[in-house]
């Protein structure tokens, strides 16, 4: 019972961190049709900035998170304008090559600037320790991660379903050319959603630093996980991404707890099974 409970909490926290990081990837992939392997690199940049701000500059945790999100956006937007813009609509292979190239560059630079060691983001006192639920106690940080995931999901749902920007975004996802013809400025929609996606990646990188430690090869190590989650969920779908994160996070965590010697065996077995049963992802639509 104890094990089941701790697996459930850890799985939920891990799934939520995965969700926060990869939902941006899912939206940009559904919108711009770019296989962005550099998404994990942006999460890593967020982690580095937060670590630098909180540890070396001694700023507060909340301020470090904000700095990480906006700092990463400031770094990523010029990359989007200069490099990504040229591969929209290019064949998948070209996109893979370009974004792997960007990832390699960011890894190399991070390795040079911060060294190959692990970086921690010190937690504030309020998030350390654990909360007693009466019958069990849970690490506060796990609760914080789960809350962040739920907040991001709710905010995105509101943004996409209830606002004028969301209408334009959905129109552009469905048919970019037609949306542009109807007067939606797709360029701006692209840029804004890319910035939001990168910001969310940075947020996830900071919040998840306890579960996915920040180091130069972060970008390469978890890149595959994020891509897998998005593909299993179905690119462009929030409920799909949430379901995929919870299912895969659960399988991965349970596998690590119960049969640690098998590593990620069950995770990838589940991926193959899901993709074979749902070739378009859990929430994928026909014709995509």
């Amino acid at each position, binding site marked *: 019972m104890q094990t089941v409970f701790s697996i459930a909490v850890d799985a939920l926290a891990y799934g939520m961190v995965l969700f926060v990081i990869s939902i941006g990837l899912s939206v940009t*992939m559904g919108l711009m049709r770019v*296989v962005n392997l550099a998404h994990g690199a942006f999460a890593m940049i967020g982690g580095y900035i937060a670590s630098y701000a909180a540890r070396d500059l001694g700023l507060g945790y909340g301020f470090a998170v904000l700095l990480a999100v906006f700092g990463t956006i400031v770094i990523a937007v010029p990359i989007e304008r200069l*490099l990504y813009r*040229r*591969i929209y609509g*290019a064949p*998948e*292979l*070209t996109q*893979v*090559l*370009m974004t*792997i*190239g*960007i*990832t*390699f*560059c*960011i*890894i*190399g*630079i991070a*390795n*040079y600037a911060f060294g190959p060691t692990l970086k921690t983001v010190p937690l504030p006192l309020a998030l350390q320790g654990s909360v007693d639920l009466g019958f069990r106690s849970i690490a506060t940080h796990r609760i914080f991660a789960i809350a962040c995931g739920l907040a991001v999901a709710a905010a995105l749902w509101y943004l996409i379903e209830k606002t004028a920007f969301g209408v334009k975004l959905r129109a552009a996802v469905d048919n970019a050319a037609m949306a542009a013809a109807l007067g939606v400025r797709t360029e701006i929609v692209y840029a804004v959603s890319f910035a939001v996606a990168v910001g969310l990646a940075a947020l996830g990188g900071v919040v998840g630093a306890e579960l996915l430690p920040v180091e130069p090869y972060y970008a*390469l190590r978890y890149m*595959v996980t994020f*891509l*897998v989650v*998005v*593909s*299993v969920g179905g*690119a462009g779908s929030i409920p799909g991404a949430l379901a995929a994160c919870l299912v895969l996070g659960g399988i991965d965590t349970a596998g690590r707890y119960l049969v640690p*010697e*098998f*590593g*990620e*065996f069950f995770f*990838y*077995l589940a*991926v*193959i099974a899901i*993709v*074979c049963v749902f*070739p*378009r*992802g859990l929430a994928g639509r026909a014709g995509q």
Partner: protein
Amino acid sequence: MTMATMNDALAGAHGKGHKLGRDLAGLAVILGLAVVGYLLFPNNLALLTRMTAIALLVLSLDLVTGYCGVATLGHAALFGTGAYASGIAAVHFGITDPLLMLACGILGGAVAGLVCGVVILRAHGLPQLVLTIALIHLFHEFANKASSWTGGSDGLAGIAPDPLLGHFEFDLWGRTAYVLGIILLAVVFALLRLVVRSPFGMLCRGVKEDPIRIRAMGASPKLALMKMYVISGAVAGAGGALNAISTQVVGLDSLSFTLSAESLVMLVLGGTGSLFGALTGTIVFMFFEDIVSAANPFHWLTMVGALLIAVVLFAPKGLYGTLAGLAARRREARR
């Protein structure tokens, strides 16, 4: 239209003799480069042999990616299975004749190609890419787990191949392994030129351009791709076996995602859909990696990344594809 189809259309205009000329020229270039490499780097034959093995992997990747349009980030699964098949044959079954080990590797690679093909060809686009990633990780974990057969993370050591044909010992300098590798590469290259030009090869290219039309013609796209996957597995397995024979050890890195990604990078760097492109990409990438990582181990990843970005921006058809395109345009202009 891919570079390869264009090349062949050009070659077709000159008739059969021209194609044969290109094949012979290609073989001559391979052998010439091999001799130059031998003379320039007599102390670094291990690198050249590894390059040959990787060239086989990239060629096999070109068969499915360049000719069939299946984007895969898990092709090292075939290479590594070949390497382990020949290594296990040598260590556990006492098959130490290099040619028999090579045959074991080819067989193992072909079986792995069949398994991967069955799984990978179920999906398309992004899910397909993800399936390939999942497969390479599964293979990796499996080899790691089955450590009584594969040696796990320590690697499979103790492979001691007999002298080649009973005469040529595998010496410390790696000369025999190098010559074996070059002959293997030349033979595979010649066979693959025949395969990709055969009606079957054209069918695969047709599947890449328009699978629906191919089905309407009465052919089965999936069957064609599956056959190509098995052929590709055999070629990759040969590369793996060569690596096992020459280094006498098989590590888990031969089944890694990194190797898969690197081989894809080499292929796209050289140019997909052309056997020459695959070879060019391998040679350029591995020399670049060797030189840069020796010159500055801290920055080599940044340099490789910058090289990739530059290729996408300035030579989107790959190095060979772009050069061939330039040459074709100059020929047109002169006419």
